[in-house]
């Protein structure tokens, strides 16, 4: 419908808010409480405008002005908050008149009377909406001459977020955010009137998505504790990139200052993560500045690893590699390496003449389902079946599922981007719980939002899907196998089949068994659902797609480290954490480790080469929906660290050959041939590139029979770096051994005890976490890159208590 903003006429869809019309027309109006992807509430009263609209008479004809013959515009008696006003045909919005300016000025004055104006010491200074708006719309002076409200200046809402209650302007964005987006109501206003403040019932914000409130806070009230007092906004280099923390491909903005990453903020990607990221991504960056980071190549001389220049290290490796015939060499990169790194690894393997090339962690089954769902499709799905714990595995998927539960389709983009006030969104919307079924071997967070909940036995994914297939085919199944009543299962299978946009989401638990993955695929076909497979790491999809895979199952990563390769190049993996593997590796004739830290494997290596973190490299990753997304390097001082392309370049120089993939550009030239797309041209939003579907012909070597009632579970935070992320560590208390209270009692363990326990033979130091989310008799430990999610064998009888919980007398 056509509306007029000042002197500009715009044509927008019915239901659009007036504030979006103002921005679409190219005008500006201040606002603090509206926030994209959240309900408009009209609390800050900044976006007031003079609004008028024509009216119809009783016969449905427009009332016309007698003199001009035009439609008479009837002005609303008071100024309207444009964020909460829907457009009507012929509406006239005035944002420039004296009356409007006076009101905006007055609102700025009201907002500032209790604001401390401590901008010179505020972390938000320079990037503060209140500061900007005060300059643009305020009078520059205050007539308020009384003492301002004094409240707590440093209130730790959690170990990750600090609240300055004096700076808060009560826009309610954070409070609304928790209810509307993750559905975790952990924050609210307390007290009333001028005494209103935000707070929690207890310390801490029990949600996986708390950090987003620091992005949306229009002032410096809510601050990321990892970056507080560490820099001013104009000093930061902002790098728009993609997170390599999980397979979602969430857009992030990496803020670095003087060569150090200080904070991660959410980037905007309307089709992937919208403007939200989980806490694992946001706060899990501190390891990049860890003082123990390896910044120069290390070469073993007289039994000691000593720092050497790159050419010396590369020459040593090149010289030694000549001793081996190709098939004795193994190359393995981590599954969050970029496509370009994958090309480099493949090219190096080809140069060496070996088929022993792989990426890890990798499961046997493919992460590329035949009927691939996208995250946008998930967000509008009408029936969702989830197996596993997506809230921990790929938290972005959890939020898109919650979008579907709200039942509001993603907003169309306007000329100025995402609508500022989407009037379809409301506070406390009813959620369509009935469209969601969550199945897992233990209680997972998403079950709170699910209409149907199933708890099957550990390792029961295959039988679960077989049971569901039987039901879909009109048969029946054992309720113990389904983990829910037969009636519930039947009802949900019917719902999936009747749904037009059904999506089945599976993760590591299903991928860890070929039979389960096959059954899931068959079930999806039986009910006509699309699939979203949560790969184990950021680029598992892409590396599989370009074929960073061994030429035979006996050449895979597990076989390589188990003695299959006499010379090994390993990037960012730590197989030697397993003492049995360490013994073998100690005997290997050449072990080259490319890593950021001195891992158990690096300590055995002949050469250790410094690696870049995921924030420091350029490249491309393919997220779990098959979207190619550009990763951009932040200006971080990583010493002489290189990514795999850099590693290959250095080795190539030493070999005296130009290996393909010796740089990102070189790798992209190679990829252009295979993909038919130039990745140099990829925009920040990424793109879908048609991929030849590759059925993984090579599986991973079966692990020795796991019969334990234990699980390696995916976690939102990267466990391999958890101990080097002090803020996350303080929040989580450490990697958790989760078990049921009854089991804790039987084994005389209490919450917070520190123990060492063997997980599949690997000793792990863990913190006891007693929770009734675990069924009695089942324990879980966090997955690691070298030990991805799936059933595990945990030696509870051999548990050693290292330190008892601190008892307070």
């Amino acid at each position, binding site marked *: 419908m056509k509306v007029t903003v000042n002197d500009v006429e715009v044509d927008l869809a019915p239901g659009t808010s007036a504030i979006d019309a103002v921005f679409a027309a190219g005008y500006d109006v201040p606002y603090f409480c509206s926030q994209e992807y959240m309900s408009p509430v009209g609390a800050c*009263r900044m976006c007031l405008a003079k609004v008028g609209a024509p009216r119809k008479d009783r016969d449905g004809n427009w009332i016309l002005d007698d003199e001009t013959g035009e439609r008479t515009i009837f002005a609303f008696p008071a100024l309207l908050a444009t964020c909460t006003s829907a457009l009507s045909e012929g509406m006239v919005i005035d944002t420039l008149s004296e009356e409007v300016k006076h009101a905006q000025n*007055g609102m700025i004055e*009201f907002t500032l009377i209790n604001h401390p104006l401590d901008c010179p010491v505020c972390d938000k200074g320079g990037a503060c909406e209140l500061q900007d708006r005060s300059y643009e719309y305020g009078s520059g002076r205050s007539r308020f001459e*009384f003492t301002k409200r004094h409240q707590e200046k440093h209130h730790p809402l959690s170990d990750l977020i600090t609240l300055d209650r004096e700076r808060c302007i009560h826009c309610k964005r954070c409070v609304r955010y928790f209810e509307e987006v993750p559905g975790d109501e952990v924050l609210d206003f307390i007290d009333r009137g001028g005494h209103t403040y935000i707070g929690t019932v207890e310390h801490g914000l029990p949600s996986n998505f708390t950090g987003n409130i620091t992005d949306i806070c229009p002032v410096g009230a809510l601050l990321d504790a990892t970056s507080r007092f560490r820099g001013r906004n104009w000093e930061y280099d902002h790098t728009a990139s993609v997170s390599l923390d999980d397979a979602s491909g969430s857009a992030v903005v990496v803020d670095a200052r003087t060569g150090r990453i200080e904070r991660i903020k959410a980037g905007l990607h309307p089709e992937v993560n919208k403007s939200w990221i989980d806490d694992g991504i946001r706060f899990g960056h501190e390891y990049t500045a860890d003082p123990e980071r390896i910044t120069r190549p290390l070469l073993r001389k007289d039994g000691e690893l000593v720092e050497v220049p790159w050419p010396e290290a590369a020459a040593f490796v090149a010289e030694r590699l000549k001793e081996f015939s190709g098939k004795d060499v193994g190359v393995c990169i981590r599954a969050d390496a970029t496509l370009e790194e994958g090309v480099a690894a493949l090219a190096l393997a080809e140069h060496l003449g070996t088929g022993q090339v792989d990426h890890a962690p990798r499961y046997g089954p493919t992460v590329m389902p035949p009927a691939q769902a996208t995250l946008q499709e998930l967000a509008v799905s009408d029936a969702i079946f989830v197996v596993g714990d997506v809230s921990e595995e790929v938290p972005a998927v959890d939020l898109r599922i919650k979008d579907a539960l709200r039942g509001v389709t993603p907003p169309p983009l306007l000329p100025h981007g995402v609508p500022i006030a989407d009037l379809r969104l409301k506070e406390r919307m009813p959620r369509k719980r009935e469209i969601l079924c969550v199945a897992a071997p233990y209680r997972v967070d998403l079950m709170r939002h699910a209409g149907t909940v199933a708890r099957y036995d550990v390792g029961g994914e295959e039988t679960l899907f077989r049971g569901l297939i039987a039901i879909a085919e009109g048969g029946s199944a054992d309720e113990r196998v389904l983990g829910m009543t037969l009636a519930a299962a039947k009802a949900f299978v019917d719902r999936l089949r009747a749904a037009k946009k059904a999506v089945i989401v599976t993760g590591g638990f299903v991928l860890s068994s070929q039979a389960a993955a096959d059954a899931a695929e068959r079930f999806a076909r039986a009910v006509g659902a699309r699939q979203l497979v949560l790969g184990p790491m950021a680029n598992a999809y892409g590396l599989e797609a370009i074929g960073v895979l061994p030429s035979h199952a006996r050449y895979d990563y597990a076989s390589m480290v188990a003695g299959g390769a006499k010379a090994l190049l390993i990037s960012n993996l730590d197989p030697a954490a397993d003492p049995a593997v360490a013994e073998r590796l100690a005997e290997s004739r050449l072990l080259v480790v490319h890593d950021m830290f001195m891992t158990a494997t690096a300590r055995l290596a002949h050469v250790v080469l410094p690696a870049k973190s995921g924030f420091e490299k350029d490249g491309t990753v393919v997220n779990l929906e098959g979207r190619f997304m550009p990763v951009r390097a932040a200006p971080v001082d990583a010493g002489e660290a290189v990514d795999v392309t850099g590693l290959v370049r250095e080795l190539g120089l030493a070999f005296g050959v130009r290996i393909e993939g010796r740089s990102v550009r070189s790798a992209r030239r190679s990829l252009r041939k295979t993909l038919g797309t130039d990745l140099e041209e990829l925009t920040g939003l990424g793109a879908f590139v048609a991929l030849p579907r590759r059925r993984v012909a090579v599986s991973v070597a079966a692990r020795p029979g796991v019969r334990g009632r234990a699980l390696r579970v995916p976690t939102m935070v990267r466990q391999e770096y958890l101990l080097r992320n002090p803020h996350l560590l303080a929040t989580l208390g450490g990697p958790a051994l989760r078990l049921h209270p009854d089991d804790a009692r039987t084994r005389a363990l209490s919450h917070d005890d520190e123990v060492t326990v063997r997980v599949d033979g690997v000793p792990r130091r863990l913190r006891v976490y007693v929770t009734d989310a675990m069924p009695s008799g089942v324990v879980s430990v966090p997955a690691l890159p070298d030990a991805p999610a799936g059933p595990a064998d945990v030696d509870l009888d051999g548990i050693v208590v290292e330190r008892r919980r601190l008892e307070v007398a």
Partner: protein
Amino acid sequence: MSDAVADRPKPIVSRFDPRFEVTLYRHVGVAGSHTLPYYREHGGYEAAKRALTTSPSAVIDEVKTSGLRGRGGAGFPTGIKWSFMPPADERQRFIVCNADESEPGSFKDRYFMEDDPHQVIEGMIIAGFAIGATRGVLYVRGEYYLAYERLREAIAACHAEGILGRGVLGSSFDFDIILHRGAGAYICGEETALMNSFEGLRANPRLKPPFPAQAGVYGLPSTINNVETFASVVHIMAKGGAWYAAMGTDDSKGTKLYQVSGPVARPGVYELPMGATFRELIFDLAGGPTMPAKAFIPGGSSTPMLPWTDETLDLPMDYGSMAKAGTMLGTGGVIVIPEAKCMVDAIYNIVRFYAHESCGKCTPCREGVATWLPKMYQKLLAGLGTREDLVVMEDMVRNMRGTAFCPLADACAMPVQASFKYFRHEYEHLVDHGEPLHARRDWWSA
């Protein structure tokens, strides 16, 4: 045509009209009037019985005929409000009674609930039938403990007698009432804040639209009315909409309760037909002021005051006349302000109330009403004010008018603006001399 007008009987606009009879408050003050036997002896629940034999649309039409307008303050036509309910579907619907009477100067609903609770319940049954709601929510102000007790007893008695529950009064209509006590926040009188409070949420007003008819209690279709509106419905059903419409003026029909407080001989609640004058209320019924008066507030503390003149006292108390005079009928709570009371102090008293009751949701109310304005009054009353302060106050109040999320900020701004309009000289005297024109005095031990 003119003959027809001439034939139409003159509407009843005075309590002294012989055709007028007290209906709403006929039982108030009678010992034992709150019991069910007393109420039934006096024809109680007959109106509901009759209504239940007709159809919901017939009830709504009758209420539309009566011209009844909401008695909570805003004066929205009740019949039209009821017809806003969406067509019936499988969803639960609610009829909500707003008994959170908290406006200073208003105390009419209290005596309904204390002395005549069954009248309210009967009205809710009729309204519930009209809009197809099988659940009523009676949200009673927390401080009204006796009212709460009496309502609780009344509801229990109704259950025992089959008046509430399955098959109300032998009909096929099921209806039950949930009695809920507030926790002492004025903002809960705002309909959507009341619903939030009832749901156990923070009592912030909600965004409208959606209006309660679309998404009210628990997001379900709801209609909310004031206690007096429900009581009026009983009599409309008993005596017919035409009887009701015979009282009052063109835009304001029926009979209404007016409250008088301040220095008058007989403060209290008086039932008058709409359109009766302030003079009739203040002088004839309340016995006139006991000391010289300079102004009166016509409809509860939020309505702009009027100066004490012959013209204003002769104004008819109806919605239209009040709007024309630049004020509002509100709840009909008239407060007489004596000559000897410092107007600045009197208004500060009102401002303090609204400052305390601001919910803190929106900026002008939280920062203006609840923080800045009371501080300015404190400064003035401490004798530290300046002429510039008055300019600042007027501008601040202008910024509070019509900019806030809900009417609470307006409710605070309007009396302040009116005081500046009529009694600016008192403010000026205070800032020029450092002390008020009318000295502080002890009003209670005199």
